């Protein structure tokens, strides 16, 4: 999932300064799962914003609504009936959700309530860790299921560097060295030969904005000039 965290109240107040009717939109997808932008967080945030406005003598009305996923057009369409009365939208989705709302409602300012952090896993309740950088060229088959691009501080393909000591990364004593972990796991699986080949410089995908159209749907979106 995409892991995000809420911005500071100060940041949000600065964004919303001067707006009087704010629609706060939650997302039932990733940001709900990581307890940053679901229905509960929408309610909490609106309460906080109202209280602060009241303390400061400002006028603010808030509405809250959580869609199933902010990255799907049919779910976002549910907001059409709500946006008419608001002068700003505060999205509690990831950066993609914010932009998708902004794209649908170009006449209304859409603000991000969250900072999107990474693609990660739920290690335990309220504990999330990054695992994937969506690099477009997965090497996990050769690295024991541990991503060197994400988990190595230098993103090395031919690690480990000269830094690891007692199994931890040179940047931080609490961070395990990804390449030491890869080594240990491959050793356990009898696949250390994967560590011996020199991996060539990679061709980086994703250097321009990504877009994928599945083959089966290409006819829908491609103009046929013939």
């Amino acid at each position, binding site marked *: 999932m995409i892991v995000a965290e809420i911005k500071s109240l100060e940041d949000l107040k600065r964004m919303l300064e001067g707006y009087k009717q704010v629609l706060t939109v939650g997302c039932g997808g990733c940001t709900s799962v990581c307890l940053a932008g679901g229905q509960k967080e929408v309610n909490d945030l609106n309460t906080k914003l109202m209280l602060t406005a009241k303390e400061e003598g400002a006028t603010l009305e808030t509405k809250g609504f959580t869609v199933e996923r902010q990255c799907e057009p049919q779910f976002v369409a549910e907001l059409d009936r709500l946006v008419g009365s608001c002068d700003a939208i505060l999205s509690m989705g990831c950066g993609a959700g914010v932009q998708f709302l902004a794209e649908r409602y170009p006449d209304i300012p859409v603000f991000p309530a969250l900072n999107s952090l990474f693609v990660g896993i739920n290690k335990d309740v309220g504990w999330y860790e990054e695992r994937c950088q969506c690099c477009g060229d997965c090497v996990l088959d050769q690295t024991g299921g541990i991503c060197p691009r994400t988990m190595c*501080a*230098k*993103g*090395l*393909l*031919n*690690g*480990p*560097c*000269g*830094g*690891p*000591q*007692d*199994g931890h990364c*040179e*940047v*931080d004593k609490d961070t395990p*060295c990804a390449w*030491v972990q890869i*080594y*240990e796991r491959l050793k356990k699986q009898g696949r250390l030969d994967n*560590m*011996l080949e*020199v*991996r*060539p*410089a990679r061709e*980086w995908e994703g250097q321009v904005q990504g877009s994928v159209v599945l083959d089966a749907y290409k006819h829908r979106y491609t103009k046929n000039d013939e």
Partner: protein
Amino acid sequence: MKSGSNLERVLTEGKFAVTGELGPPRSADPEAVREKLQYLKGMVDAVNITDNQTAVARMASIAASAIVVQEGMEPNYQLVCRDRNRIAMQADILGASALGIRDMLCLSGDHQVFGGDPKSKKVYDIDSIQLIALVKKMRDEGKFLNGDDIDVPPKMFIGAAANPFADPFEFRVYRLAKKVQAGADFVQTQCIYNMVRFREWVKQAVDMGLTEKVYIFAGVTPMKSLGMARYMKNNVPGMDVPDWVIDRLKGVEKKKAASEGIAICCEQIEEFKEMQGVAGVHIMAIEWEKRVPQICEQANLLPRPTF
């Protein structure tokens, strides 16, 4: 000859080689480079010029290397993967060769969280092993990484680093093998204090036939004081300082600690000279360049060969 550098000649003639190190200043002053350099003249066969070491912005290693060339000495130009993508690196390799630089050291680089700009964006477009392969391809095939032709290829004697003391120890010699496979001509090690482990690592390299393909420089850093030894032991990543080093420095009066540090360093060098598989010594006298002549003298490394 691959690059025709002084270092390459010393090594191919079978002489025990010596390299030194010079950290460029945090200023635009060329005299700061020349000043440090004067202590190294006639003492070493080439001088490593560090590239924004410890991730702190300094005078560019290529510029400081060019000053070294102007001064009639040989730089070993260091280039790290942290700050440049392949476009900038290939440009710098061509530029370095055009400036008369003939030795270079390919490094990953200290992570930027150590330095003065921990929130700068890291690059690591390619890693140190891929950089070695890149320089080799440019030099030997006359091609850029993407396969385009280079009219006049760069001439470089290709160096790499090795840390025999990092984890996992049993993989370290294989990592050396990868660097050799990628095209390293010489390798300089991290500062050695743990002689037991170093002997074992070199023996592995000899047994695997690697020392027939690559020249290994044993890295040394003389301890200036007991405080420095303790700091290196506890705070510097990838450093293995055994207790005997601390004990020897503890065993002398404070004002004699520096001499004791140099004595330890020279004893190590004497052993390296006799050690099978070791082709030279890399003296990293950090901000202590003025003691290099004393070390070279005391370790019987002088005079340096001339051609």
